[in-house]
């Protein structure tokens, strides 16, 4: 797919937007992917977004992502307004069109911010808080514009280009008494700060601090519960405990050395995380991945989908009090990890995909390992289904609990099994086949109720479908190279290095400095195990990315928690958390 064939003019939305907004809208020339992108003035942005969500025919109902780019140190300013400082990027998705759109709002020193779109999309709430936290861009009219990932006492906005990225760039850390005092006071819990009332004259609510260390939260997550007896009046997730600044690291690692960081975003899905990042890099570089490498990528990703779903299934059962499934499922996952180890050398974080292909060819005997798993797993899965999905207590605890409608799911930006459990067969592998998914036969499982049980049903069926895909990989694995011979493929194929000087130089440079990826912007998304994963990369022609934006599914999913947990009991909250299948590293990045 060359960028030219996908110019914004080719998309009908361009004409529709120009007809509605004759002035103040400029197509963007930097994009290298197939997402129509438009610049608008900050003042116009909310109106354009409202038009795209509610007025246009075949609308864009999903706020897929919202983030900011610091334009101030960019080599080549691409904004129509040369004085612009920040760009707020709105990424919307349309199911009817099967197309995305990016609206870039220009924020200059004078305007200082944009109007909040929380009234348009409830999911914008956290995204805007994150944008303010990271860049200091204000969203006027936001109900609760407070820090979300960083601690309240943090000074500065970390993703700004002038904020230090390394400890060596700042003064040594010190903790004088008054600072300690300040930090301690900042930790004190005041319900008012969280928008909670303490109760009436007759009674007080019980505030329960669930986490950050709690066996039921599966990671560092704090949920502030306002309880009336055991009934939840309000539940407010407090995230950021797992924030590592992955996006900031993307701006200081080379394109190649950032790959291991992606593994750790959704740490249960291993190499599956590499894929959207590399697809975005490859789009920027114009690399075509050879068919064998594509199929190997698909196979390993699907193995990790099963592995991730197994962890989810086991821990979900454990949240409901069933002890044994965890052991069975971790045993099965171990079998997958053994295959991963044989192929990649690593287990949880193999970091095995490379720009232009994969690190190595498959080892001898891989087919035997894969075959034995394909034979082993289906009867086990049937057993789990009988033991849990048909268990009366399990059904009582999950059916009708944590339900949301399809419309709510779309409003809140839910993707993946959570969306399919509401009856929508939306799967990027089918809707927008990537990495050769168009060659595979598989179904997109759906359920209708949208409750905890429906989400479980969908995931179990997904494991079967993943197994089908793996079996097809086994039968149809093409011969050929596992890495592109494009000069930017990193590390380059070595067979010609010792024969001609050009290849030797490229090899040396790509390995030492890392490849220089051509200027441009590209987004790439895949259907991950938890939902839609996506990477938006900006290159200004350097060895490092100018901006790495990681779109994760867990972030919007977890944002929905207050909506799901009002009026249920603490036990149900655990069922809801378990059925969501989030990973805290995926939420906080």
């Amino acid at each position, binding site marked *: 797919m060359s960028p030219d064939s996908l110019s914004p003019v080719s998309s009908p939305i361009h004409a529709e937007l120009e007809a509605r907004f004759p002035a103040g809208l400029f197509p963007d020339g930097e994009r290298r992917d197939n997402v129509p992108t438009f610049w608008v003035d900050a003042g116009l942005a909310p109106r354009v977004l409202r038009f795209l969500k509610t007025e246009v025919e075949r609308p864009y109902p999903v706020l897929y992502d919202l983030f900011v780019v610091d334009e101030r140190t960019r080599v080549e300013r691409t904004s129509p307004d040369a004085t612009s400082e920040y760009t707020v990027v709105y990424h919307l998705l349309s199911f009817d069109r099967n197309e995305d759109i990016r609206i870039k709002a220009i924020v200059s020193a004078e305007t200082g911010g944009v109007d909040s779109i929380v009234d348009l999309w409830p999911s914008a709430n956290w995204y805007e808080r994150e944008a303010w936290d990271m860049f200091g861009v204000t969203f006027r009219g936001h109900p609760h514009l407070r820090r979300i990932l960083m601690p309240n006492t943090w000074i500065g906005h970390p993703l700004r280009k002038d904020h230090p990225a390394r400890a060596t760039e700042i003064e040594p850390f010190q903790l004088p008494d008054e600072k300690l005092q300040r930090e301690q006071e900042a930790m004190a819990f005041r319900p008012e700060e969280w928008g909670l009332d303490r109760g009436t004259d007759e009674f007080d609510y*019980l505030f*329960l*601090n669930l986490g950050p260390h*709690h*066996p*039921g939260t599966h990671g560092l997550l704090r949920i502030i519960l306002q309880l009336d007896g*055991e009934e939840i009046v309000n539940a407010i997730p407090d995230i950021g405990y797992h924030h590592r600044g992955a996006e900031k690291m993307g701006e200081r690692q080379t394109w190649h050395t950032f790959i291991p960081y992606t593994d750790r975003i959704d740490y249960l899905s291993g190499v599956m995380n590499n894929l959207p990042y590399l697809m975005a890099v490859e789009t920027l570089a114009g690399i075509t991945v050879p068919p064998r490498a594509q199929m190997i990528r698909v196979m390993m990703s699907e193995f990790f989908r099963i592995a991730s779903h197994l962890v989810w299934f086991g821990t979900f*059962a*454990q*949240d*409901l*009090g*069933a*002890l*044994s499934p965890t*052991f*069975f499922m971790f*045993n099965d996952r171990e079998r997958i990890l053994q295959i991963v180890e044989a192929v990649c050398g690593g287990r949880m974080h193999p970091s095995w995909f490379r720009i232009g292909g994969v690190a190595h060819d498959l080892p001898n005997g891989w087919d035997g390992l894969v075959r034995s798993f394909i034979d082993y797993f289906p009867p086990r899965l049937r057993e789990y289904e009988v*033991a*849990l999905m048909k*268990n009366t*207590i*399990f059904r*009582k*605890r999950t059916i009708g609990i944590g339900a949301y409608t399809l419309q709510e799911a779309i409003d809140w930006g839910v993707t993946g099994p959570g969306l399919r459990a509401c009856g929508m067969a939306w799967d990027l592998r089918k809707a927008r086949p990537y990495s050769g998914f168009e060659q595979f036969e598989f179904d997109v499982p759906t359920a209708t109720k949208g409750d905890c049980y429906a989400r479980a049903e969908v995931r179990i069926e997904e494991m079967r479908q993943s197994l089908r895909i793996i079996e097809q990989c086994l039968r149809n694995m093409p011969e050929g190279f596992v890495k592109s011979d494009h000069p930017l493929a990193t590390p380059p194929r070595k067979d010609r290095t010792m024969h001609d000087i050009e290849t030797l130089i490229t090899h040396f440079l790509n390995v030492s400095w890392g490849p220089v990826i051509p200027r441009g912007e590209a987004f790439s998304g895949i259907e991950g195990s938890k939902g839609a994963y996506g990477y938006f990369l900006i290159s200004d022609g350097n060895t490092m990315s100018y901006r790495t934006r990681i779109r994760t599914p867990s972030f919007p999913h977890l944002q929905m928690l207050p909506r799901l947990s009002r009026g249920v*009991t*603490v*036990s*149900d909250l*655990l069922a809801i958390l378990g059925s969501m299948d989030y990973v805290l590293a995926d939420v906080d990045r």
Partner: protein
Amino acid sequence: MAIDFETLRPLLIIVGVLGCLVLTASLNIWIERRLLALWQDRYGPNRVGPFGLGHVVADVIKISFKEDWIPPFADKAVFVLAPAIIMTTALMSFAVMPFAPGISVVDLNVGILFVLALSSIGVYSVALAGWSSNSKYSLLGGLRASAQMLAYEVFMGLSLMGVVAMAGSFNLRDIVLAQQGMWFVVPQFLGFVVFFIAGVAETHRIPFDLPEAESELGAGFHSEYSGMKFGAFFVGEYIGITLISALTATLFFGGWQGPLLPPVVWFVIKTFSFISIFVLLRASLPRLRYDQLMTFGWKIMLPLSLANLLVTGAVILMRQ
């Protein structure tokens, strides 16, 4: 000074029963871990001593030497009292248990009532532990525990009335003797089911382990306990399991009676079979929600036990 055997005998029985019980409780920990491991495709403790039995000793040593810490925010006197109550009541219940003909600490003619009364006192232990810990998780656990145990207490007692009616006595020894022709599990099958379920709830084990639901409340009512006080709750729970298993064997499965083997051996075999069922339940079931547990108790179990009593009473009257 001449002390004859008959004077010593009750003392020996008391010491023997007490010793055996504490031993059984710690052995239960080993049994549970090994059985769970067996059913969960793993090994369990198998390093120390034969079959990993040394782990029991190691655990006892470890827990005895742990720092016995009382949280500064706790209500100290009650905090200390709570674990003592559960240990005492659980141990005292065994006083009326007929282990074999002639082997029981005391032969009370209100045996069942005595056991039920003690298990009611046992509720205080968890309620007070949850309250005195002064921690929200403990409080929630304690609240759940008191409501759950009070509810299940009611039909636990009612479910036994069928047995009492058939045997014509509250005395556990008489009840065992009344089962010479046929074990009460046959005519009182419903009573047995209700009693066993109530027993699981009384010992707050899965699927009724809400007071300590570890994925929800951390450790529930004993979140703040450590060292030997935690150990007391732990051992108390296992003695409770042993008690319910022993009672089930006594009331419904003919107690010590059985062919060939000596009576005590039969009693032990039956008791341990039921302990295994406790473990099997834990290995296979998820946990109920609080309101479901209460609904299940009041709307299903209570009518069932009442119906059982009614039918039993009618049948007995008809036969007379």
